[in-house]
């Protein structure tokens, strides 16, 4: 599973990355977490508001900071 955190580096984006790391640890699944900071790459996902979360190339959340509990649901879902 590849999880990407989209954001140009604001505090919410950093927090989302931490929460994602936490979520992956808790579920114990094999996943790589990548940070996408280039505007051009973020745009390609059609994301207007950062931070956003992409799981296996599908945008699952954008424009809001979600916490590990919710991320776990998204990973499993």
């Amino acid at each position: 599973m590849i999880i990407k955190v989209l954001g140009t580096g604001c505090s919410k984006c950093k927090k989302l990355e931490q929460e994602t790391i936490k979520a992956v640890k808790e579920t114990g699944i094999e996943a790589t977490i990548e940070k996408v900071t280039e505007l051009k790459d973020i745009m390609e996902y059609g994301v207007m508001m950062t931070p956003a979360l992409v799981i296996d190339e599908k945008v699952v959340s954008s424009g809001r900071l979600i916490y590990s509990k919710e991320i776990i649901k998204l990973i499993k879902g």
Partner: protein
Amino acid sequence: MFHFLEVFGEFITRSVGLDLDSHWGEALTFFIYDTLKIIIMLSIMIFLISYLRSYINPTKLKKVISKVSGLGGHILASIFGIVTPFCSCSSVPMFIAFVEAGIPVGVTLSFLITSPIVNEAAFAILLASFGWKIAVIYVICGLVVGIVGGIVIGLFKPRKWVEPYVFEMKFGNSAEEQFSSQNDRLKWSIDQVKDIVGRVWYFVLIGIGIGAVIHGWVPDGALANIAGSDNPFSVIVAVIVGIPLYSNALGTIPIAEALINKGVGIGTALAFMMSVTALSLPECIILKKVIKPKLIAIFIATTGIGIILVGYVFNLLF
């Protein structure tokens, strides 16, 4: 509306052994009263707007705005600016998304001007400090500055000042559903309250603290000569001072409230607040990624003049 909080503040002040009419007594009562009032109002407003926001899909809204031309587009973009969250890190992606969708640069700027001026947190604190009338007029003024500002900037044909790479950006399609149930929306709204109150409370407390000092020590009417509504230059000076400042605007509201009580014109105080929020150095640096300095200068000048006019209107009305 919040009389019981005032009673509570007086009760605490008396309990710690202070005279209600002393400087310290007045300052402490004001501090307790204002803090509770603002935190309560802030929580209620953020909850309501977050819940409303959970139904708004930016991708769909962008499509709607791109179909409306002229004045209607500016109005829609400005209203959209009210309901988007106040995080400046999203301004660049939003800008590109708008331009890519074929929305004129002027309309996009209507959005960018209104978005930071009007947000639920500023509205809540204004409501707590000044009541309905002023809070609502503030929102209307924020809208008008955005709409008119965007139209004026549009007259300059600003497309030539947009960095060329913006037009080459390809915007992907994403139509993800954000929330799956009512429960999700409510939970998220509560999270938003915790998140925003958690981030801004100290700015607000510092602001209230300074306000409390002004409240307790500055004599009534002392500032009327310097910054009262009769002084024609006060608004201009307030706006120019406010432009480079980047404070969390929410902290400036309690200060403004205290200053108004001491004779500062309400338009002067609100214009200062608007210029602190709408125009800031960090925002300009972020925008420099997508637009050329010349357009940034026009953006600052247009918005600044708009805010100055709003200040004068307020001073005349109240």
